[in-house]
């Protein structure tokens, strides 16, 4: 068998990319629906239930409405950056998802793995790098709007994001130490099998502290409550996107929700065995299904804590980030590196 025709390979890559983008956009739309319905239930309300059965057409109606809103540029705004910022936020949010495997890598068409956009050797570093670029979307949007609320929101947001990025970056090192690789499919593969015959060999049981730190950090990195200070509406109206409307406003929301999906995907891949689950070996198509189930669990968790926890103060936010997350992550790093040398077979890797 020779190498597959280059056009066929390209067609598979393009089709795969399109499917992932459409699925992410749909997932975004229905996460807004899920969030509104669940928050309503938590607050003993009913929530949107008029547009379609169970209000299922509500996201579509909202989307169509936003297309027909006025395309608005505030006076004194830097027009180029004002348009660039939401686009940048949305594109980087999509790009960060590119390296996350959502199914077994041996399902291939013309030699192209179907359940992952790309598998560069930088792996998890790629996610960290691209999500950092997403901060530019927020700070440019806040600065270019020529509004005091926007600028304050953007400043707070960028300080928050860079502070929590350290905790997240250090928490992930524990997993890299165990696996000895940055490539996400390899990390997933090393979590197959069981401890003591019944406990799945997931990293969450080896790295509970790392998982907790990543979860807190991811909540802050995606601007989700209780860390949603950039949009604290009582003091900053809407934070960095105060002056945005229509589809540019929606683009920031797409970015936020796609980032939540990516963060859940990273947490699932690194700590919960990724796409692994019962019967995946026999039916590889079940891989994406298990992946979606785990992502959904995270989405539910993020919505749940929004309904439960009040927003924290800014000084508390900085205290948690620098005085708790960073030292604990360093501690986790030191402990893990000792354990890896004493018990090298723990991570399963080479």
């Amino acid at each position, binding site marked *: 068998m020779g190498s597959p025709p280059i056009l066929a390979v390209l067609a598979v890559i393009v089709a795969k990319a399109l499917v992932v983008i459409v699925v992410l956009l749909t997932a975004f739309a229905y996460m807004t629906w899920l969030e509104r319905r669940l928050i309503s239930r938590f607050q003993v309300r009913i929530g949107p239930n008029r547009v379609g059965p169970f209000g299922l057409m509500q996201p579509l109606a909202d989307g169509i409405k936003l297309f027909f809103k006025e395309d608005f540029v*505030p006076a004194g705004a830097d027009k180029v950056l004002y348009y660039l910022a939401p686009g940048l936020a949305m*594109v980087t949010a999509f790009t960060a998802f590119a390296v996350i495997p959502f199914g077994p890598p041996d399902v291939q068409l013309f030699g192209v793995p179907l359940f992952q956009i*790309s598998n560069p050797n930088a792996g998890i570093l790629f996610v960290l790098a691209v999500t950092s670029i997403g901060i530019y979307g927020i700070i440019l949007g806040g600065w270019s*709007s020529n509004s*005091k609320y926007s600028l304050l929101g953007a400043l707070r947001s960028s300080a928050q994001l*860079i502070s929590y990025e350290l905790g997240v970056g250090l928490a992930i090192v524990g997993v890299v130490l165990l696996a*000895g690789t940055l490539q996400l499919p390899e990390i997933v593969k090393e979590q197959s099998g069981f401890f003591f015959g019944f406990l799945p060999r997931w990293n969450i049981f080896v790295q509970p502290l790392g998982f907790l730190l990543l979860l807190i950090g991811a909540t802050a990195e995606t601007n989700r409550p209780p860390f949603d200070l950039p949009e604290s509406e009582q003091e900053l109206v809407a934070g960095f996107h105060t002056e945005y409307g229509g589809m540019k406003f929606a*683009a920031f929301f797409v970015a936020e929700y796609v980032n939540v999906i990516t963060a859940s995907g990273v947490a699932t891949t690194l700590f919960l065995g990724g796409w692994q689950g019962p019967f995946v070996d026999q039916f590889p198509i079940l891989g994406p299904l298990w992946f979606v189930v785990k992502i959904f669990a995270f989405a539910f968790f993020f919505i749940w804590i929004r309904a439960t926890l009040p927003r924290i103060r800014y000084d508390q936010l900085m205290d948690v980030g620098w005085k708790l997350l960073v030292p604990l992550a360093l501690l986790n790093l030191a402990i893990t590196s000792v354990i890896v040398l004493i018990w090298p077979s723990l991570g399963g890797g080479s």
Partner: protein
Amino acid sequence: MLSEYLSILIYMILASGITLVVIFANKLLGPSRPSARKSAAYESGIKPTGTARERFHIRYHVIAMIFLVFDLEIAFIYPWAVIYKTLGWAGFIEMMIFLGILIIGFLYAWKRGAFTWE
């Protein structure tokens, strides 16, 4: 290896295309009736005063500088973590010395109140 980044590039181009289409469809479909009052910056309904690009607190700069140091540190830790199992105890001791030096700086910044927000 190159083909992996080619896939990412194709994916990014498609994502950018959709983003552009969505934002510019809004420009075409939506009305455009600007007025001086509408385009004024929102300041809770009062006339905006002064410039919006105000000076801001020095603390943001301090946080950004400390972030740079620690982010570079993390960039050093990742390659070390990948080959850690072949480095063994020598790698462990080296990294602990490296982290120790940084932690002294971290504690100094902490004592000077760099992370305390009033």
